[in-house]
């Protein structure tokens, strides 16, 4: 295949391989030029800042029950107060760290597991491949939230259990795509030479194959993160988290238990809910942009004389 931009020209007319590998410097330029990517990055940076320096934004103690309960938003309390008289905005900001931390840890572990399974299946082939593929398919079909609830009801409530059950149910999500990529790389020359050198399979997988898949891994990470954010919050919302831990999901649970929407301060529920939505949207925007950057066919089309795909 020819390199450079001319390849994109011919590829745009011929059938193209969906996941084209993208060089780093061109990639950064593409990210900067893509509106969705920029929006996603901005959102994530803001949230990361709140996670890293909560004290700078909300100096109050989030759990101090010193204010009048169920106040609506005002300048003193940007999101009002809870039933117990805590400042909602403070709670929100201080909950960012743990929420983000859980999301990232689970996404990293799940992506890593996905990769190991997918690439090993692709590289080993034969029976190993069949077995791993079946296992992956099984986990893909099992309904996620019911399984999460089932597992979480019997573990001690808290972050550790949350991370554990989320990892168990999410590793299969991207394993298929990573396996496909592994298959396409399998027969390349540099791998053959590694085999001939006598390197062990695990070495080949980790050191030779994985680095070629960095863009796909990053995309998988992002796609996963979108769902992890939602699932973690949903689990806690249903009462399977530890309500004394500072996370957006537990805030939602507490708010729902106090019927905040109907009888109290609705922003106690809407605030953390919006935060969860925002974090999910940030990852989703980046993911969307990633798809466009990696697959030229999906990129925005400048409207020509006729505004249709087929003229």
């Amino acid at each position: 295949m020819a390199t450079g931009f001319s390849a994109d020209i011919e590829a745009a007319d011929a059938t193209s391989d969906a996941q084209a590998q993208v060089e780093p410097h061109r990639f950064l330029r593409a990210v900067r030029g893509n509106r969705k990517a920029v929006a996603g990055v901005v959102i994530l940076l803001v949230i990361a800042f709140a996670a890293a320096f909560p004290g700078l934004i909300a100096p109050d103690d989030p759990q101090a029950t010193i204010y009048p309960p169920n106040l609506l938003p005002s300048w003193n309390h940007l999101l009002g107060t809870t039933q117990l008289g805590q400042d909602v905005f403070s709670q929100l900001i201080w909950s960012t760290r743990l929420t983000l931390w859980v999301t990232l840890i689970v996404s990293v572990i799940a992506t890593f597991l996905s990769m190991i399974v997918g690439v090993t299946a692709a590289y080993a082939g034969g029976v190993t491949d069949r077995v791993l593929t079946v296992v992956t398919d099984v986990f893909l079909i099992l309904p996620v939230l019911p399984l999460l609830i089932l597992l979480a009801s019997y573990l001690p409530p808290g972050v550790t259990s949350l991370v554990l059950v989320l990892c168990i149910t999410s590793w299969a999500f991207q394993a298929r795509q990573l396996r496909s990529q592994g298959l396409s790389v399998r027969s390349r020359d540099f791998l053959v030479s590694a085999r001939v050198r006598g390197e062990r399979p695990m070495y080949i997988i980790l050191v030779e194959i994985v680095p070629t898949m960095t863009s796909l891994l990053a995309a998988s990470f992002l796609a996963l993160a979108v769902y992890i954010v939602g699932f973690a919050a949903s689990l806690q919302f249903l009462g399977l988290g530890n309500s004394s831990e500072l996370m957006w999901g537990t805030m939602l649970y507490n708010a729902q238990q106090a019927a905040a929407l109907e009888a109290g301060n609705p922003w106690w529920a809407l605030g953390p809910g919006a935060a969860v939505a925002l974090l999910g949207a940030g990852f989703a925007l980046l993911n969307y942009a990633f798809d466009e950057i990696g697959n030229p066919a999906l990129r925005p089309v400048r409207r020509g004389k006729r505004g249709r795909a087929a003229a």
Partner: protein
Amino acid sequence: MRYLARRGGLFLVTLWAALTVNFIIPRVMPGNEAAAVLGSFRGVNPAALHALEIQFGVNTHRGLVASYFVYLHNLATGQFGVTAQGVPVMTEISSKLPWTLGLVGVTTVIAFAIGTIVGVASAWWRGGRLDGILPPTLFIVSSVPVFFVGLLLIYVFAVKLGWFPLGSNYSLGATPTPTPSFAWDVLDHAFLPALSLVIVTAGLWVYSMRNNMITTIAEDYVKTARAKGLTDRRIMFDYAARNAILPNLTGFAMQLGYVIGGAIVIEYLFSYPGLGYLFYTASTDHDLPLMQGLFLFYTIAVLVCVLIADLITAVLDPRTREA
């Protein structure tokens, strides 16, 4: 055909996996919880209690493997155990099933229709206004967890505007009768929950349908169809949309698990007494047999849909036929 046989095999393996998950969970519970949970059950007749003990691995002198086979045998003979209140699990499930089936069934169909139409249209008219706003919007919205959509809808339409009721599936004190007014009451209550689910599910489907459609439009055979002088409408339906939808039918069926999860959250949020709400109360009550029964039920439901999608694909896609 070999293809269907392989899928049937996957069905069995997944079913087996779900059963085994159910079996293992009470045995890895920390401490003596299993016995404690069992102890909290009320009004359970001795035979059922015995079956539960086997399921939980409590008070038996059998080994793990023997218990496992008795457990499987019980399931095969239709004994799914009883709930913490002594009601047979199957009875509970079948009484709540219609409500969830209605909710999830209708929303899935609507979401599929919207997703396909919008996805196809936005891909066909690339760069147009539709393509500019709708798919990214729907994609972002679908990445938002379903409970937030529900929360917003409740707050805006039920609390603030009072257009729709706050929860439940029909008004307090009304008796379920097949009258138009009751039907209207049901629809009134089901509207917001259904809307929440449709918004989230349609968004997902639009995104993948649009991308598949774009890739299909770029194929050479669509170009050939243009070169032959076929009308745009013909090409869009007969060459592009059909080829974009069919291979993805199975993928869509596999997303059903996510929809089911969403329904659980929505039913909880709206106090809608369907299977999802049942699952939630079972989890807070630590009613293991009920949870296990529901989990099994959900898994089978997804498997059946996947198999149906596979069947349709096998029938309609000529590539699955051997030369």
